[in-house]
């Protein structure tokens, strides 16, 4: 597999906290990927492997004609089985170089919460990083206080792989993240809480394209 240009908008799924997971996620993915190229990361730890595999195949069919990419959180076996595009790993995980030996052509990314771990992830061979939380967000409070834009800039300057900013990202603060070196932005809640997804996406697109 050749590495395609990574989309700059990244959606992390977490249906467990949604009222109608089975219905909401596919509909959201369909709308997102129909409007612009997105990386969709399936992060559904409550699902058994068979259900996750079947959901992956279903989402792939919805994304078929787009330039979007589908990643799985951690389960590189399901990525391989379904022929999805990549796997994303938490900060603490099996080393990326080890994973690379099992899945040579796969896009591999890593969550990082410090400059040190960002540098290690790049050294291990990660293709991209998610760094955050940048701004305050209830979902990410367990990772400590927000990093802020200065740390984002420091990380972005010190690694040569794409860095996606995460944590409290909105269309309004996306430009700031880009100005501080981010390659793109990653988000979750905003796609669910927005009353007009098409407008939110258009605003994201404008902020990312500037």
């Amino acid at each position: 597999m050749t590495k395609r240009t990574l989309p700059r908008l990244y959606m992390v799924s977490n249906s467990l906290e949604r009222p109608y997971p089975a219905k909401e996620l596919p509909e959201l993915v369909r709308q997102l990927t129909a409007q612009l190229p997105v990386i969709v990361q399936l992060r559904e730890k409550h699902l058994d492997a068979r259900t996750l595999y079947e959901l992956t195949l279903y989402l792939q069919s919805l994304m078929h004609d787009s330039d979007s990419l589908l990643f799985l959180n951690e389960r590189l076996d399901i990525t391989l089985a379904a022929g999805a595009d990549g796997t994303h790993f938490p900060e603490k995980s099996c080393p990326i170089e080890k994973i690379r030996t099992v899945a040579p052509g796969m896009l591999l990314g890593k969550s990082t919460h410090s400059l040190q771990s960002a540098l290690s992830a790049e050294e291990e061979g990660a293709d991209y990083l998610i760094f955050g939380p940048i701004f305050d967000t209830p979902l990410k409070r367990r990772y400590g206080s927000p990093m802020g834009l200065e740390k984002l800039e420091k990380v972005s300057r010190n690694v040569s792989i794409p860095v996606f900013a995460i944590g409290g990202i909105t269309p309004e603060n996306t430009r700031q993240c880009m100005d501080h070196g981010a390659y793109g932005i990653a988000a979750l809640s905003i796609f669910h809480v927005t009353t007009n997804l098409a407008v939110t996406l258009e605003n994201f697109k404008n902020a990312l394209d500037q």
Partner: protein
Amino acid sequence: MQIKRPILCYITADNLCPVEQSEKALEGGARMIQLRNKGASGSDLYDWAVRIRKLCRIHEAIFIVNDRLDVALTANADGVHLGQRDLPAHLARTLLGKEKILGISVSSLAEAEIAVRAGCDYVGLGHIYPTFSKQKTGRPLGTACITEVSQNLSVPVIAIGGITASNAGDVIRAGATGIAVISTVAEAPDPRKATSDLIQNMRSCLQ
């Protein structure tokens, strides 16, 4: 690696250190370890898997990871054990390659035959007796089911569910190649001795 009769497969219990448990079971004579912990992070599973794999090499035992084929691949385990709600068996076989061991949990001859067609190397058949280790629904299969499945199958049958030193012999006599246990070893005051007692009982009915 061969699954030799009578084999004891120790499946790690969630509430104890999997590495310590495995070491005790191996010292007691277990020749197969299955790392199983549904709630653990991928990182912990990987670290445990690397350590248990080494112990298994020393004891010439087979090392299998439950459900997480990703962990089995990265930690270079000998194989993976999948339930009916895990990845489809034929895909797991493709990802594992020909050499690695694929085990599938089954609860009937029909499921066992499908598992064999998908390329599995052994089936875990259960539950044979009532058990509380994994909240099982449905009635225990009993030893007659072991005979039915093992006579009709080309791969080893490893019996699971409620197996203790007092019934391990019956299970082997019924045709099982071996047994898989969690609580009988994990909850024993001396897990090494509990393991060797089980093996002794299996062996005595083969002589």
